[in-house]
């Protein structure tokens, strides 16, 4: 796990970079990213014709590249980006490119501690998942990789991949199955028509996905073995947080959506729509975004929908650490709202980012946008300054402080404020 404790929770305010200066220094400055610990801010910058670099705090990487994109900080605050040199691509970490070059590389992902850096790569027309500069060997040539997932510890990498070539307009070939899941380089025994919604259990032992069995027939497949039950449609499965043998997924039957665990329907009530099922941290409760009626959205906790409904949409619900409260971002009549346990907190915003609960569950903190400015809102009310750019606030492990990182007048600040003050 990431060592949040070791971050600087003492310095009240640090001005780490004046990004306004970047605009004078470079031909073009892209949108900034910050490291998880808030200590670094970085932007891809154009330094000349076909020459790019990355500005990090007061400096830049040593070497410019022909192209740079997808700059992302790893959880341990190393800066990665995808770069080209002599028309070939690779990953650069803190300015240092991997030795191996690729035809293409994309979709950087990290293990929770940041030690594992992975990406999808293409080399000599073969696709693969590359982990810390090493492409996982696969006995078959992968025709394509649609997406992949990485376990928390970074030891399990599972990819949705096309393992068989398919001729043009070959309907039979397609329905026989050309897609499979490749786990650490090993494809599952069977192919499927389609694979969606890949999930890896928290312990990294099990891999589940949706699969399509026929034109209108779907199911869940776990470690290559399909559930017996099939459905009219499914959405992505999730694992129980502490029990990697329990998988829950929305399933569609006779025109209604139900929640099913390991193939059995567990909520007796069907919905017009059911999405984003989410376990509480201890795994005892499940919340999901549901529409009991057309265009009436709410959250159902253990199958019981809240009374209040919202007419546009709902994002993914999240539980408080003790699993007693549920917060969700809802959209109603053009405004985004923070809703906790069915009650709207504060006012409507132009945008709201995924909220976090304070450890005691009494405060819900999130980044909000209003009139083009960003701010931190607590229980739906804006606290403190507004920013030109702002990142999701982070609560300290002991629950006493919040780290707020944002840009004001071009200056990048990292602030730590006591939770009690906001």
């Amino acid at each position, binding site marked *: 796990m990431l060592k949040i404790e070791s971050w600087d929770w003492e310095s009240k305010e640090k001005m780490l970079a004046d990004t306004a200066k970047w605009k004078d220094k470079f031909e073009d400055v892209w949108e900034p990213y910050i490291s998880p610990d808030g200590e670094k801010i970085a932007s891809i910058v154009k330094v000349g014709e076909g020459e790019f670099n990355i500005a990090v705090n007061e400096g830049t990487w040593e070497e410019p590249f022909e192209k740079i994109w997808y700059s992302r900080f790893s959880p341990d605050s190393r800066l990665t980006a995808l770069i080209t040199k002599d028309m070939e691509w690779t990953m650069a970490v803190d300015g240092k490119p991997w030795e191996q070059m690729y035809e293409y590389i994309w979709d950087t992902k990290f293990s929770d501690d940041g030690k594992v850096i992975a990406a999808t790569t293409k080399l000599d027309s073969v696709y693969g998942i590359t982990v810390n500069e090493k492409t996982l060997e696969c006995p078959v040539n992968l025709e394509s990789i649609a997406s992949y997932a990485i376990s928390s510890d970074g030891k399990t990498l599972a990819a949705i991949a096309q393992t068989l070539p398919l001729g043009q307009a070959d309907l039979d070939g397609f329905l026989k199955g050309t897609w499979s899941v490749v786990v650490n380089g090993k494809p599952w025994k069977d192919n499927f028509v389609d694979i969606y919604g890949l999930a890896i259990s928290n312990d990294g032992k099990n891999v589940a996905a949706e699969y399509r069995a026929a034109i209108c027939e779907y199911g869940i497949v776990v470690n290559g073995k399909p559930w017996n039950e099939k459905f009219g449609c499914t959405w992505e499965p999730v694992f129980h947080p502490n029990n990697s043998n329990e998988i829950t997924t929305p399933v569609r039957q006779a025109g209604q959506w139900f929640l099913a665990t390991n193939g059995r329907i567990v909520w007796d009530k069907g919905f*017009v729509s059911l999405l984003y099922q989410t376990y509480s941290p201890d795994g005892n409760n499940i919340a999901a975004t549901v529409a009991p*009626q*057309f*265009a009436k959205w709410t959250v159902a906790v253990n199958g019981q929908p809240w009374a209040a409904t919202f007419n546009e949409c709902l994002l993914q619900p999240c539980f408080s650490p003790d699993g007693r409260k549920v917060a969700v971002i809802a959209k109603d009549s053009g405004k985004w709202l923070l809703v906790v346990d069915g009650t709207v907190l504060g006012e409507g915003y132009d945008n709201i980012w995924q909220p976090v609960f304070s450890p005691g569950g009494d405060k819900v903190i999130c980044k909000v946008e209003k009139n083009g400015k960003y701010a931190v809102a607590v229980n739906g009310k804006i606290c403190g300054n507004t920013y030109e750019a702002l990142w999701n606030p982070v609560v300290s492990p002991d629950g006493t402080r919040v780290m707020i990182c944002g840009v004001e007048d071009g200056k990048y600040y990292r602030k730590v404020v006591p939770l009690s003050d906001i």
Partner: protein
Amino acid sequence: MYEFVSGPLVWIAFIVFIGGSLYRIYNMLSSSKKEKVVFPHMSLKHSVASLIHWTIPFNNQYMRQRPIFTIISFAFHICLIIAPIFLLAHVILWDESWNMSWLTIPDAVTDGMTIMVIIGCIFFLYRRLTDPVVQNVTDSSDYLLLAITALPFITGFIAYHQLFAYKAILIIHILAGEIMLIAIPFTRLSHMLFFVFTRAYFGSEQGHVKNSKDW
């Protein structure tokens, strides 16, 4: 015989007509609920707008494109509804048995209207026989419906002018009217009931949901 058709049978006809119509409408509404989007897509404003454009002659592009059809079909439908309701002889019957009466239209006018309905029927019959598209979707039921519609008016016309066998024709006339009433809810004559709803739905979908118009 006359007593029966002009007494209990009228009762039965009206009960079946009203009850049947209510049943059909109820049934349509409740089975429409099965499709979850139908009612949320409806809007009163756009329903009314659609109805205004399709119940006033020449108030939409297509009607202007087919003037003859528009004139005949409007005249036909207006006369079909107005003439029987405001005919003096009918109102007197209501007055006699229910003590209810309302405005009436001079007999000469209702006579003309009756002729109009008959002309309409002939026109529709002609289209059924000659227009290839219509022919292709016509079956015996379409002729039957046309006959059911025409008969009360033809017999009414004959009875009014007392052309022959007045008593017998009158009985047939009343019977024909009753058959028509009974037929409305249970045959495609129900388009009379559903017109408002299908228009309202399409108008809503075009206007409310799709931000356009349906005329």
